[in-house]
């Protein structure tokens, strides 16, 4: 039982680290702003979600597990809002200090 749990946790954390690495690679290598935004949101949502899913079985009490899930939901919310704002300002070109 324990070894199964460890294997699943290792796989989930490894997959999360892989998504973070791919997202960083995309942010550094992709050619323009919207492509980079696409790579960034994948790393944000999926990478952190997988890492937190791998950590959840090791949480000592249910409140800590609840806090971890809450952090993930908060990151998804703020990441979506921030990416939307950046893309909107970049598309309309009316950001005050975004694009010059």
């Amino acid at each position, binding site marked *: 039982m324990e070894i199964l749990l*460890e294997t699943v*946790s*290792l796989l989930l*954390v*490894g997959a*999360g*680290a892989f998504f*973070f*690495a791919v*997202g*960083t*690679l995309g*942010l*550094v290598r992709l050619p323009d*702003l919207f492509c*980079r*935004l696409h790579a*960034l949101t994948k*790393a*944000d949502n999926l*990478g*952190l979600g997988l*890492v*937190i899913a791998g*950590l959840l079985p*090791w949480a*000592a009490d249910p409140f*800590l597990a609840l*806090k*971890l899930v*809450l*952090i993930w939901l*908060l*990151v998804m*919310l*703020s*990441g979506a*809002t*921030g990416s939307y*704002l*950046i893309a*909107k*300002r*970049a598309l309309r070109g*009316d*950001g*005050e*200090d*975004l*694009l*010059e």
Partner: protein
Amino acid sequence: MSEIFTAAAVVLVLTMAAGLVRVVVGPTPADRMMGVQLIGTTGIAVLLLLGFAFEMPALADVALVFALLAAVSVTALTRRRVGQDRS
């Protein structure tokens, strides 16, 4: 299990250091802010992994503050251009 978490934290810190390239060279401020956002999210993952590896659950609170303040700094950057004649 703590070794695995520490190893994952090391890998994530290396990707954070690679993502800093975009913050330093990024042509527009939007690119830099996206780099900072990615650093914040990866930092949350590193903090959680460290918290479980060191058995310090208080680091989850620090991760929560990271998540809150990423939204603040992105919103502070993406203001619309208003009041051009103010000096």
